[in-house]
């Protein structure tokens, strides 16, 4: 039987199309896979730089096996990434281990700078949940470069700390000071402290700290400590911190923790309170909005009524009614007062 010419044409056309889809220099599947792999190598290399950068404080080189174990890729990919860094002059390898060169240090510093600036951007200018900041910044840091990082920094007001209290390296690889504060191990029962740093890695421990209500800038009184952990008091709430989580917290003593403070979200309907301030969790545009609506220190707030689903609640402040969700009212620190005036 003779081959049907039309069928042959169709088959040939399909084969050509498949061929093009594969080998097209830009859009072809093979080209894309190659680009993806290059990107992954690039990201792996940058991650190695970050690991080394974080360890520069100890002043000692990291041994090669240790480094391979620390980074996220499998051994083969990881050592390829390290070899690439060596070729590019960003790390130096000798029998003692792997060390960042000056240039490698500058590149790593810029990466950390981009990461922490992005976290601050997420905290101040977006509504993303606090637990997502680090992961998103981890992905974004590889995409920001040069001028866009500087623009971001300027727009945020040239900040020096990220939302968890980590110092943001300056441009051009200037050395970054370590976070302020002492480990929470050093605290004494009965004294008051302020959280100066919250470690955001590993992420699940960080999420646990956030769930318990901790945040950068939080002031608390230490109620109890024992082998199992610590018990704090903050604005009328009791917080327990198991020892395994405590390592991620740095604090410094503070003198100005007000007595009898609570969160507006915890004030009952029909009660009255006086505003003390907004917590550090209230950032950027949200903070500004609270202040503009009248939640300024000294303002009187009446809790008028709560909607059927327990959220939102209507508050009367500066002679007008404002509705706030529970998570918003939780960021406003107040002191209950008697409805006829005068402290409770």
């Amino acid at each position, binding site marked *: 039987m003779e081959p049907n010419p039309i069928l042959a044409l169709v088959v040939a056309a399909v084969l050509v199309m498949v061929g093009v889809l594969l080998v097209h220099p830009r859009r072809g599947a093979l080209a894309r896979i190659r680009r993806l792999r290059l990107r992954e190598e690039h990201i792996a290399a940058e991650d190695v730089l970050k690991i080394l950068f974080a360890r520069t404080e100890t002043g000692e080189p990291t041994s090669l096996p240790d480094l391979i174990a620390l980074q996220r890729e499998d051994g083969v990919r990881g050592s390829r990434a390290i070899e690439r860094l060596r070729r590019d002059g960003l790390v130096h390898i000798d029998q003692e281990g792997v060390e960042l060169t000056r240039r490698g240090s500058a590149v790593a510093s810029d990466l950390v700078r981009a990461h922490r600036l992005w976290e601050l951007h997420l905290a101040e200018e977006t509504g993303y949940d606090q637990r997502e900041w680090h992961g998103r910044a981890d992905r974004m840091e590889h995409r920001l470069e040069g001028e866009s990082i500087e623009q971001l920094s*300027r*727009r945020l*007001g*040239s900040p020096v700390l990220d939302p968890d209290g980590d110092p943001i390296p300056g441009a051009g690889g200037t050395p970054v000071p370590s976070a302020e504060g002492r480990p929470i191990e050093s605290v004494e029962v009965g004294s008051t402290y302020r959280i100066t740093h919250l470690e955001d890695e590993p992420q699940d421990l960080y999420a646990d700290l956030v769930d318990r209500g901790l945040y950068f800038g939080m002031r608390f009184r230490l109620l109890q400590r024992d082998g199992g952990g610590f018990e704090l008091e903050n604005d009328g709430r009791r917080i327990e911190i198991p020892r395994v989580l405590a390592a991620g917290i740095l604090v410094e003593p503070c003198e100005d923790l007000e007595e009898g403070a609570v969160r507006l979200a915890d004030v009952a309907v029909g009660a009255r309170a006086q505003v003390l301030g907004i917590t550090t969790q209230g950032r*950027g*545009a949200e903070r*500004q*909005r609270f202040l*503009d*609506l*009248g939640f300024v220190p000294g303002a009187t707030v009446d809790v008028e009524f709560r909607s059927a689903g327990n959220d939102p609640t209507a508050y009367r*402040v*500066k*002679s*007008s009614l404002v509705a706030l969700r529970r998570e918003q009212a939780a960021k406003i620190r107040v002191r209950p007062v008697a409805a006829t005036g005068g402290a409770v």
Partner: protein
Amino acid sequence: MSGCDGCSAHGGGLQRLGFKTTNADYVVALAGNPNTGKSTVFNALTGLRQHTGNWPGKTVMSAEGGYSYNNKRYRLVDLPGTYSLLAASTDEEVARDYLLFGRPHVAVVVTDATRLERNLNLVLQVLEIHERTVVCVNLMDEAKRKGIEVDDRRLARDLGVPVVPTTARRNEGIRDLLRAIHEVATGETVCRPRRVEFTAPEVTSALETLLPKIDALYPGLPNARWVAARLVEGDPSIVQAVESGRLGEVREEYEVAR
């Protein structure tokens, strides 16, 4: 009909011009919190013949209209309703930029008589940026219903600018408003707006250092102190405006996109 309108005995003839307001003698910006009846005031002044559109490059709505009063042509620009001018949102940015760079002849801040305390936040901020301001205390009928009395004379003394009570939806007080705007525009009324006093020594010394430098760069700037305060705060857009020289430009071409 036109005979009555044009006669000055008719209380300063208000003629509504619709939106063809090129060659206006004076430009008036209308600011205020949301829900203060600002649109009603706007309509009372311009009739329903306005042009609505968007601010250039933004998705914020705007409206422009005009009227004639005492033989002078006024262009009225409606700024977005905002709680403040601290530029945390596009609305606030647009409102602030217009007052700063558009340099209208008069700014009118519409306030709600039943919520004066909160509204004064915006009033005080406008007074920091813009000297020639008139405060319109609207919704006076609501205030009366709730038993609230507003001492507009005392308020005018405290703020240092004219204060006009109105009930725009009943056209009450609009004549007084027009006259107040006119007197400020022509200079007949001199505004001495009350401005925020900073007390922290670090702030005042920083301002003292900056003020002479700003005066040297931009002599005669009416809100140099406000600009200095923003520089100390590190407000990126103000820093940029000072550095680029844009601060000194009077942007007469701050046209609403048509």
